[in-house]
């Protein structure tokens, strides 16, 4: 892998784990605005080839971030060579920044639309289980609270920081919540009415990529026929033909027993994959969909953007 691609991959991975994919995209687009603002090429015509290089880095990271590929593919289409040659020396920066800012505001509007569509779910008097720290799910819950709906949240513990992020958000919004260790869920499963999840992306294999631990929880609730909802912006779709489990990173390290002199291998995985059919409904910015509907929408978008084959942005 190219050194720069490797560097950016690591950086984006770290931020995604911390912030989630949606806020990662927002952060990268804002950074792009700042970068272009301070960009001082010898000749303004250097912008387009340099932007091409930048897009090639962003869309070829490991793992690929669907949401970033979507936005950067859009920008690359906008800033093509024809467009570049039409740019005037004194105006190019303003025009380019205006376009990026438009994409950024469209992206934020998509998030608002998704929250609006989440109103279609009946959460009145329900107990909702959450596990990952999806900001989309958090926004929906806060929206319900602001609408005056009465519901309770159970936070299934996972990574320390992510659990605390959920606790913080629920506390700030004044949402009634309890926290339970993930491995003790079976004891309260009968009190759970619905499960909300967010995801990093949806693959062409119709698998959602979620936080580790999600697979087991979803499977357990599926057995009990408790509806599982996915909240995802369609901009997060991975509109290319994916490698099997390409987005999952395995972190192996040595650990020592806390008391005794025993060293052992510890393995951690970055993400889980869960088939779309395991979700009762998928709440998107384009409506609340079934797994069949999301598949149709995905295929339509794949054809429309055809990133993998047509635009030469992301390689297969």
């Amino acid at each position, binding site marked *: 892998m190219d050194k*720069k691609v490797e560097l950016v991959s690591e*950086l984006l991975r770290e931020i995604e784990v911390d912030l989630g994919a949606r806020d990662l995209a927002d952060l*990268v687009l804002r950074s792009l605005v700042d*970068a272009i603002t301070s960009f001082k*090429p010898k000749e303004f015509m250097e912008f387009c080839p*340099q932007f091409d290089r*930048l897009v090639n880095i962003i869309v070829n990271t490991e793992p690929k971030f669907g949401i970033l590929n979507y936005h950067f593919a859009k920008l690359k289409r906008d800033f093509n060579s024809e467009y570049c040659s039409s740019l005037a020396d004194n105006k190019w920066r303003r025009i380019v920044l205006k376009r990026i800012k438009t994409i950024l505001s469209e992206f934020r509007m998509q998030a608002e639309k998704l929250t609006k569509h989440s109103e279609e779910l009946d959460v009145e008097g329900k107990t909702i289980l959450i596990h990952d720290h999806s900001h989309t799910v958090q926004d929906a819950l806060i929206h319900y609270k602001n609408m005056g709906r009465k519901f309770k949240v159970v936070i299934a513990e996972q990574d320390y920081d992510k659990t605390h992020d959920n606790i913080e958000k629920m506390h700030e919004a004044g949402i009634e919540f309890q926290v339970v260790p993930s491995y003790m869920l079976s004891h309260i499963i009968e009190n759970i009415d619905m499960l909300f999840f967010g995801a990093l992306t949806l693959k062409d294999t119709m698998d959602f990529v979620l936080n580790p631990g999600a697979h087991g929880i979803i499977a357990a609730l599926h057995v009990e026929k408790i509806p599982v909802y996915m909240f995802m912006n369609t901009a997060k779709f991975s509109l290319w033909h994916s490698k099997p489990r390409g987005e999952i990173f395995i972190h192996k390290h040595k650990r020592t027993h806390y008391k005794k002199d025993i060293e052992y291998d510890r393995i951690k995985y970055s993400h889980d994959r869960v088939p779309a059919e395991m979700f009762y409904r998928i709440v998107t910015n384009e409506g609340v969909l079934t797994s069949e509907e999301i598949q149709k929408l995905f295929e339509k978008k794949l054809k429309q953007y055809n990133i993998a084959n047509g635009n030469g942005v992301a390689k297969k």
Partner: protein
Amino acid sequence: MLSYIALIIFVLAFVLIVFEVFDKSLIALSGALLMVIIGILTPEQAIESVDFETILLLLSMMLLVHIASKSGVFEWLNVKIASLTRGNPLAIFLLFSLVTAVFSAFLDNVTTVILIVPLTVELVKGMGKDPKPYIFAEIIFSNIGGALTLIGDPPNIIIGGAVGLSFMDFIVNLWIPITFSAIFALIVFTIKYWKHLRPVSDNLVELLIANIIIKKIRLKFVKTTIHTDFVVKVVAILLLTVTGFFLQTLIGLPTYVIAFSAAVLLALITAKRAHIHDAFRSVEWSTLFFFAGLFVLVGGVEHSGFLEIISEYIATSTDNLLWLALIVLWVSGIASMILDNIPFVTVMIPVIFGIQGHMAGVDTSILWWALSLGACLGGNGTLIGASANVVSVDLANKEGVHISFIEYLKFSLPLTLGILGLCSIYLYIVIV
């Protein structure tokens, strides 16, 4: 006989401190105890040898810095600076070097590098660049900045305490050599590491990466809870303390009283946010005991009359003040590169007093500035020359950046010799 035993105890303690056989505080305290048990000093004389003013000043600054750090004000400032650089390597280098120097002048050097080095490594390494030149700069500038004020570096605290010099005395007498040393270091760094520091404003990829990292750092900071009232109180007291130091002669209070009042006042008004027990726990008691032990050790040697002999030898070997100042500067500079500069300065103080005694009628105050410049700036010469150097290397190591002794020496030694050369020119101009 007792005189020789005192000298042996001191030399032995010095060697054990240099080779870090035990913790240095333990060595100094053991040596001090031996001085009393053997009868070189009476318990009363031992207590009298301890410069409690210096110890109280150190204690106060440790308390002040601990409580101030808890407020997050320094991290906030760091994040602001990182944002200001917009990812420009030269701006990162210049701003962080200058901030290190300014922080070091008013905080202790170790606290300064603890605050700055990890952030620099995250920023520069994240951009895919080598953070070593930046870390080297922060080491060098922490020692340069620390040399400017009475509270900036332990040798200055010891000199100030022993001689009764004020905060302003240090600034007035040292700002010229320190400013020129800083400019010289900046020029040398920029030339030597231009490849690393070259602006990236014509490279869109580099700019994007830098801006992503800056936003990431900012987000990390935003997550930490900052209490505005705490920050306001800390900033107010820090400003008040520095103003107190500047106006020390007008107020008529010694530095340690100003610092101690500030520490107690800050602890009082921030009692809800920073518990005083935590502040006391953060005090480096081993350092304070090391100082106390060292004062007794030097008191014992002084009592034996050896330091008087050395002073007499130096003073009678030449009556040329410039020569004497240059000897003090270079000997303390070179000694500080390899030895702990604190015991060295503690020994040098009675020696310089002795020299002054032999040169009655001549203004020999320049010797204190020569000692301060040599001891503080000489510490830049090697990785073991000052505590901030060792701590910086440890911090960098934790972030996966390995700095070897030789790697640092190749750059730092010629630079330090150059800086000492500049200081020699300053001494020449002042004396001649």
